[in-house]
C-alpha cells in the first residue's frame, strides 16, 4: 500500500487529564486514490492530518508512505491548511513559488511552474497582488497552487473549501477532479461536507468522535462525476447513509459532553 496508517492512537495531556483524540485508526490508501475523511467538528480530523503530514508524532502506531515510516514533514506530501497560511509579505506569485525556492529550483523553472498552477486555479491576473488584497477563496486557491507546484505524491487537504461559496466550491470541485484524473496524485481530503465527500472521493472514511475512530469505510461508485450526478439516487443513497452515520454520532457526542 502507498499510504498506511497502522493502529494509530493520539492523546493530548490537558489540564483536565488525558484527552484521547484518535483511537485505533487504520487506513490503507493506494496510489492515485481520492480519499475523503468525514467527521463532525472536534472528531480529530485535523489531528489525523497532522500525523500524516509529519507535523506531530502519534502516541502509538505509525504512518507509512511508500513503505517508509514518516518521521517528519517533507515535500513528498503537500498540504493545504484549514486556515489561510499565505506569507503576507510575498506576492501571490512568490507564494506559489516558495516551496520550489526552498527546494533549490532555479528561478526560471520555478517561475514557469508556479505560473502554470496559478493559471490552473484561475489567479494569473492576481500574480502580483499581496495576500491581503485577495478574498478568502482566492487565498485558498493560492495555497492549493503552492502545494501543487512541488508536485507532491500526496496532497493533504484540511477542509480546503469550507469558506467558499457554493459556486466557487463547485468550480473547485471540478478542478480537483480534473487535476486528479490528469495526474497520478493521491489526495487525502478532510471535510465535514458530506456531499462534497461523496462527489469527490472514490472512498470515504467516516469518523466517529470522542475518541476519533473509523466508524465506517465506504466505497463510492457513482455513474459519473458531473454535477448532475448530485440528483442521481445513488448519490442520495451514499449521502443519506453518511448523514445517518454522523447524526448518530452527534447525539452521542452531546451525551458524552454532558
Amino acid at each position, binding site marked *: 500500500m502507498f499510504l498506511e496508517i497502522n493502529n494509530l492512537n493520539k492523546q493530548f495531556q490537558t489540564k483536565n487529564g488525558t484527552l484521547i483524540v484518535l483511537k485505533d485508526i487504520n487506513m490503507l490508501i493506494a496510489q492515485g486514490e481520492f480519499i475523503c475523511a468525514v467527521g463532525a467538528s472536534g472528531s480529530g480530523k485535523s489531528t489525523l492530518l497532522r500525523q500524516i503530514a509529519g507535523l506531530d508524532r502519534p502516541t502509538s502506531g505509525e504512518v507509512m508512505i511508500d513503505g517508509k515510516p514518516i518521521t517528519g514533514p517533507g515535500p513528498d506530501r503537500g498540504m493545504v*491548511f484549514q486556515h489561510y497560511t499565505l*506569507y503576507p*509579505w510575498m506576492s501571490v506569485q512568490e507564494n506559489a513559488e*516558495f516551496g520550489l525556492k526552498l527546494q533549490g529550483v532555479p528561478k526560471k523553472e520555478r517561475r514557469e511552474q508556479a505560473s502554470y498552477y496559478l493559471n490552473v486555479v484561475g489567479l494569473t491576473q492576481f500574480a502580483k497582488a499581496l*495576500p491581503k*488584497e485577495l478574498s478568502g477563496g482566492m487565498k485558498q486557491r493560492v495555497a492549493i497552487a503552492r502545494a501543487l507546484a512541488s508536485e507532491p505524491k500526496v496532497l493533504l487537504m484540511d477542509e480546503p473549501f469550507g469558506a467558499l461559496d457554493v459556486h466557487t466550491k463547485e468550480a473547485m470541485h471540478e478542478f480537483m477532479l480534473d487535476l486528479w484524473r490528469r495526474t497520478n496524485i493521491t489526495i487525502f481530503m478532510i471535510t465535514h461536507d458530506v456531499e462534497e465527500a461523496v462527489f469527490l472521493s472514490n472512498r470515504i472514511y467516516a469518523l466517529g468522535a470522542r475518541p476519533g475512530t473509523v466508524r465506517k469505510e465506504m466505497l463510492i461508485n457513482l455513474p459519473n462525476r458531473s454535477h448532475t450526478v448530485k440528483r442521481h439516487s445513488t448519490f442520495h443513497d451514499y449521502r443519506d447513509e453518511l448523514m445517518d452515520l454522523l447524526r448518530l454520532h452527534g447525539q452521542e457526542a452531546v451525551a458524552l459532553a454532558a
Partner: protein
Amino acid sequence: MTESTNARSIRSLMKPKPMRPTVFWRLAEDIPKPLQTGLMITSIALPLLLWWAVTTFANIDPKFLPSPADVLHAFGRLWSTRELLKDTVASLWRVGVGFIFAAALSIPVGILMGSFPSIRALLEPIFGLMRYMPAPAFIPLLILYLGIGEEPKIMLIFIGVFFFNSLMVMDTVKFVPKDLIESTYILGGNRWETLTQVILPHVLPGIIDACRINLAAAWQLVIVSELIAATEGLGRRISVAGRFLRTDEIFVGLIVIGIIGLAFDLLFQYLLRVSCHWASQKR
C-alpha cells in the same frame, strides 16, 4: 406560546440606545482630511498661543517663564555661537553609538529568544529582572567602573535599551503564526530557512516598531546622563542654564530635544511604511 411571551418580555427590558451620526467621535474610522489637518495644527498651535498670551498679557518674570520671542532670541544666540550645534552633535553621537550597539545585539538575541524556547528559558528571567532596574540608577556604578568620559554614557544607553528591546523583539517573534512555520516545513524548508525566510520577514515590522519605541528611551537617557556629568550635550546645556537661571536657554534645550525625538519617530514610521507595505492595515 411561552416562547413568544418570553421573547417579548426580554425585549421590553432592553433600553433603547440611539446611535447619532458623528464626525468627531468616530471609533477607529478615518475622519475627513481637512478636520484631521486642522486638529493636528491645533495640537501644536494652541499651546503655543496660550504660552504667548500668558507671557504677553500677564506680568510674569521672564526668569520664571520666558516668552516665545525670548526663547527664539536665545535660540539665535546659541546658534550663532555654534554652542547649540556642538551640544546637539554630542548628544546625537552618544545616542547613535549606544543605540546601534544595543540594537545590533538585542535584535538577534530577541529573535533567538522568541524562536527557541531553550534560549528563552535561559535568558528571560535575568532580562525580565534587569528590565525593572531603572537605567539611571546605574549611573553611580557606571561612573565608578568607567569614569566620567563617553563610556559610561554609552553604556547607560546600552543598558536602558538592550533588555527592553530584546524582550520586545522576542514578543513579536512569539506571535508568528504556528501554521505559517509549519507550512514552511511542509514546503520543504529546514529550521534555518524558516528562521531567515519566514520568521525574519514576518517580524521585521515589529522590530522596527520596537526600535522606534526604545530609541525614545535612549534619547531620554542621554539627556539624563548629561545632566549629571558632561562637558557638552543638550542635557548639559539645560543643567548649566538652570544653574545660571537662564530659563530661556532651558526652553531652547527642551524644544530642540523634543523636535529631534519627534524627527526620529517620524523617520522610523517612514521606514516602516516603505519597507513593510504588506503590514499596513489599509488595502
